[in-house]
């Protein structure tokens, strides 16, 4: 193909091409105006990519904890504050595919190695099965049920088994052939994505899809053998059967992992993995601190909400907090060096509630200083479900004075400039007063009462109600009805993997009322979500060119 020929073709076809494209563009513009006001893409949640944590948990459950999962996973996407919602938006990029295949081959290699093959394959070619075809079929059917979270059809098993034998012949080794097939299954979309299958004629998803839903909600893991068997017997399609399984899952120690996964997502604790602080300014914030802070918050939460069946709202006022040796220096208290214990701060102590924990304070701050704006924004978005818009781009920051200005010694004074400009104030009024209430905790979460020898003023107000300091702010959140409603909405979005639509609002209201009636016990909410029949409706087919069907 020479450039000249290309040019000729362009000249001949170019105008037609342009006209065609123009037509398409015009059509698109029309469509766009017809749908103005609607979200451009109607999100389903019938195709959800496994998160890295779920992938790892599945491999451990199916093949045992000593199988190593090594490799770099494509980053999970946080959408509207939740990775669970992002899972419904992402697909797999080319480099992501490459990585999944790599990880899959590594896992498969270990599964068939001499140390594991007896336990995990349990058979080999020989005797009446000289090529190993029967062995392969058995292995594929058994593993396929766990990996695809549904039973494989006979022809699927046959095709995969045939492929195993073919690969074995090419590689000269049955186990290598089995590993190749297994790697393919681990790279398949039916493993990587949780796909909802409709139950024909019933207007809801099938029982294996339900099993997936409740298992990932309550354990953040793939359905176990018992749950799959119950699905196979049709028990999940009857309310009592579903309830029995839900109660079994919630009574298991694995339920705590599910609760931890939810709060990790809601509080964005996964971002602690990447958090670093300036070593000179916060020398007590060492390598293991971020991880310890994350673990601290999760242990505190499971202790209150799972072990003690407590009131969710008490998270904002609790003085009982998990503590270990790495965190003692930051909290300025004596702690044994080894292991975890619970520390109860005395009444009146500045530490009380989630907002005074290092995982919250250090995450929403800069490497070398605090950020009341970031902390206030986090409170609004995470705990009150209020969206704070992004700053306008043509902001004139000249009014914000520099850190070394001798007349503006404290952060509060510097941020006050935000409130002088009406354009800035409209958003900053929502965030800064909240964050400034936490200003006695520095960028690493350490407590101090003065900043540059000035006492720190921690008064503020939350939607008209005044507070003085972090403990009181915690009490305001405890008493605010929006906080519990926001938790319900967040948990709902987490369970369903999508944003709420107009026809979901009734459901949310109902769940809200039930949550309050149950004394705001988190487990009651989880149970209600797992049993909510609305979650199991088959997704309506939405086609933009024909309207809702």
């Amino acid at each position, binding site marked *: 193909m020479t450039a000249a020929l290309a040019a000729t073709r362009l000249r001949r076809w170019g105008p037609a091409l342009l006209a065609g494209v123009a037509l398409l563009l015009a059509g698109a513009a029309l469509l766009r105006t017809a749908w103005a006001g609607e979200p451009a893409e109607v999100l389903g949640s019938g195709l959800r990519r496994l998160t890295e944590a779920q992938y790892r948990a599945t491999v451990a459950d199916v093949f045992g904890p000593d199988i190593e999962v090594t490799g770099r996973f494509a980053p999970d996407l946080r959408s509207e504050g939740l990775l669970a919602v992002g899972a419904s938006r992402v697909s797999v990029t080319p480099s992501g595919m490459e990585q999944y295949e790599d990880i899959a081959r590594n896992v498969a290699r270990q599964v068939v190695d001499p140390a594991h093959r007896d336990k995990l394959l349990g058979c080999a070619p020989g005797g009446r099965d000289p090529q190993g075809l029967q062995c392969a079929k058995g292995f594929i059917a058994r593993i396929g049920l766990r990996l695809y979270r549904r039973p494989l059809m006979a022809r699927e098993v046959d095709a995969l088994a045939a492929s195993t034998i073919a690969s074995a012949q090419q590689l000269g080794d049955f186990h290598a052939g089995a590993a190749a097939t297994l790697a393919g299954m681990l790279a398949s979309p039916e493993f990587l994505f949780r796909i909802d299958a409709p139950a024909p004629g019933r207007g809801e998803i099938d029982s294996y899809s339900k099993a997936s839903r409740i298992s990932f909600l309550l354990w953040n893991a793939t359905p176990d053998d018992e749950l799959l068997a119950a699905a196979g017997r049709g028990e999940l399609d009857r309310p009592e059967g579903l309830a029995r399984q839900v109660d079994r899952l919630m009574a298991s120690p694995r339920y705590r992992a599910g609760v931890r996964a939810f709060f990790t997502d809601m509080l964005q604790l996964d971002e602690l993995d990447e958090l670093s602080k300036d070593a000179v300014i916060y*020398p007590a914030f060492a390598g293991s601190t971020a991880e310890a802070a994350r673990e601290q918050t999760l242990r505190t939460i499971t202790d209150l909400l799972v072990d003690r069946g407590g009131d969710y709202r008490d998270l904002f006022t609790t003085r009982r907090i998990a503590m270990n040796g790495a965190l003692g220096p930051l909290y300025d208290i*004596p702690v*044994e*060096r080894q292991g975890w214990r619970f520390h109860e701060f005395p009444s009146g102590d500045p530490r009380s509630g989630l907002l005074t924990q290092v995982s919250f304070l250090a995450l929403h701050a800069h490497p070398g200083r605090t950020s009341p704006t970031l902390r206030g924004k986090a409170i609004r978005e995470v705990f009150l479900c209020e969206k704070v818009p992004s700053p306008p781009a043509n902001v004139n920051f000249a009014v914000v004075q520099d850190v070394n200005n001798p007349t503006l010694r404290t952060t509060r004074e510097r941020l006050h400039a935000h409130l002088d400009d009406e354009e800035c104030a409209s958003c900053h009024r929502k965030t800064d007063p909240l964050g400034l209430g936490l200003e006695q905790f520095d960028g690493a979460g350490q407590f101090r009462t003065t900043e540059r020898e000035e006492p720190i003023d921690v008064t503020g107000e939350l939607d008209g109600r005044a507070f003085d300091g972090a403990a009181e702010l915690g009490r305001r959140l405890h008493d605010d009805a929006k906080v519990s409603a926001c938790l319900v909405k967040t948990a709902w979005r987490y369970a369903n993997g999508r944003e709420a639509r107009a026809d979901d609002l009734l459901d949310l209201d109902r769940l809200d009322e039930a949550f309050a009636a149950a004394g705001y016990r988190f487990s009651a909410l989880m149970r209600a979500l797992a049993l909510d029949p609305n979650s199991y409706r088959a997704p309506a087919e939405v086609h933009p060119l024909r309207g809702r069907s």
Partner: protein
Amino acid sequence: MAPLHAPKRTSPRGRCDRGGRAITRVGVIAVVGACALFSGAADAPTGGDPTVRTFVLSTLYFANPEEAGACKVYADGGLEAFYKMLPPAEQAKYATPDRRPALEAAMAAHFGFRRLSLQRGDFGGRALQAKLPPWFSPETPRTPEAAREIGALNGFPKGRGSFAYQNQTVAYSACTNPEDFPALAKGFKTYDGARAAGLDLDGKVARDDFVAPDGRRGVDNQLWRAIGCIKIFDEQGDAKVAAKTLISARAPTVIEIRGVTDPRNDPEVAVDIYAAADPVLRDARGGALARASFAIDPNPRLHAATRGKIVDGVLTTEPVDLLLNFREQIVDAPREIRGARLRAVLKPDGSIEGTLGGYYTLRSFYSSVEQMTQNGANLSGVNCPGVRRAIDRLADGYPDPRTGRYTAISSSLSFFGVPAFIIGEAGGRLAEPRS
């Protein structure tokens, strides 16, 4: 759902009953408040007990009163002293630095040094296949008698032989037996400046007392006179260097000050000095991690209690006998310091900086020198016979009632410390402290 273990209470230090004895005045309300914080189910508040200030010492060092290099001519190390004893023709053979190992070997040969490895296999140097007595095993206690017996079996000079190098060898050298090598001690240069760091220990201003860098007179620090012109002490005595160095981090010292109602002025506080059972940890900057928690070594010999007062932010204490852990590389030589006093500043950032003055027993000080081994002394420029003779000559404290000879020498150690917490039930507190 498996319940968690029942929550244990951390045992807060500075319990109200203990702190109470020091409080007589206005501070009562603060103490009562502190007690209230401890009542009920609560553990320590943020910041711990406000009437208790605890510190872990990151470094303890002999402070140089001047800039490094003020001692114009350094004292010769043992190796240099030997070199100077050689005729010029011999000296020429060892003139360059690469000839140093040969010089060390020559010195060892000349003086008949011995170093006998007790391990299987040779670890270099002049180790020979050791002849060991039949009763000897790795568990045999390392007594001086045992060392001499092994020495006798292996041709050591009569009555000589000492365990060295963390009990992995039996040695005979100018460091194990400095008294045998007077020639090396000859001409050992001591410090003759007018200033030294330290405290007035005997309440007198005598002729051989020093003047402190801040002008105080009557400072008793004969140990500095003995070692102040040795190069490594001169260099390591620089406060800026010491502030960044961790000394004895594996076995640090903890100081707890209780009954503090006003950190600027308090007429009576209780001061306890402990050995920590946990090491000092490093922070992200490489310095000592502040506000870490330490368990205490229960050995009562390592615990001392005394009283003190704070005036304008400076703490001073009554004298008390101390035994402080000192473990650094191959040296494990606890410091026995008699009649020790503290003088320290409690800084606004929560750290402490100060001086510990007292009479360092000759035996425990020399042990730290001897444990360097001849090899280590050569590397550090230390002249063991010179040091031994100097401290014997300059000793000025605690005469032996039988012989009349002084057993300790006035000294001063400076220190830096960061805030810390004490945890656990095991503390010298439960045993009778030495006072």
